[in-house]
């Protein structure tokens, strides 16, 4: 083995809450990718006609599917909000420790509020009368 110094492993750093936000960005990104495949499947069901769409919506209305949809919604919204935080960082702003902690808190609160709003609107859209 060579004896040159290695890049320090993640474990040597003291854990801070901004790290968990960073990890959550990656996890929610993966979940949002799964959501994209679900979206493609839903569009194909819609294109296949009223019968296929009705069965797809029946499947999406089961309790487990609803729970997953709430999870996908939170994943997408969090990734969206934290993604904007990353884009701001790319301009060189907000990188101080105190600023990054504050913007992290803003992202968490915003993600929870927007998720609640989307879930509420989604429930209304799902239970709205069937006529166009």
């Amino acid at each position, binding site marked *: 083995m060579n004896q040159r110094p290695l890049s320090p492993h993640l474990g040597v750093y003291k854990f801070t809450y901004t790290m968990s936000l960073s990890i959550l960005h*990656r996890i929610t*990104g*993966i979940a*949002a*990718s799964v959501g*994209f*495949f679900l*979206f*493609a499947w839903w*569009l*194909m069901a*819609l*294109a296949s*006609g*009223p019968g296929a*769409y*009705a069965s797809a*919506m029946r499947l999406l209305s089961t309790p487990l599917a609803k729970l997953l949809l709430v999870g996908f919604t939170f994943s*997408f919204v969090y990734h*969206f909000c934290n*993604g*904007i935080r*990353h*884009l701001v960082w*790319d301009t060189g702003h907000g990188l101080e420790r105190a600023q990054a902690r504050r913007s992290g808190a803003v992202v968490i609160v915003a993600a929870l509020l927007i998720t609640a709003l*989307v879930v509420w*609107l*989604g429930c*209304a*859209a*799902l*239970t*709205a*009368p*069937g*006529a*166009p």
Partner: protein
Amino acid sequence: MSLQTPLGKVLGKGSAGEGVGHWWMQRVTAIALIPLTVWFAIGLLGRSLQSYEAVRGWLGQPWVAVFTILLIITLSWHSRLGIQVVIEDYVHGKAAKNTLLLLFTFVHIAAAAAAIFAVLMLALS
């Protein structure tokens, strides 16, 4: 004196041989996704989703179809770039890594093709 070869200078790629293309397209698609996803969510949540006619009637409109297709392309591209980074970070065997990268590239293209085809069917039939 630069140690870069003339070809290296022209291509503008660093020692990893990839340049900033991945990083840049991740940002470009991210910025495009901000208005596209907000617009789509507002539009979709304004319909009664159990009604095939209502959802189809909305998605089939020309401009809605066009921007939904743009959303599909951008979303699949951004997703593909993100999944690529995850695979490159956690899968270390060369064969396994390249197999997974190839697989997820194909899967993303297939899903995007299906989704675009579905929107075109709704808009054109």
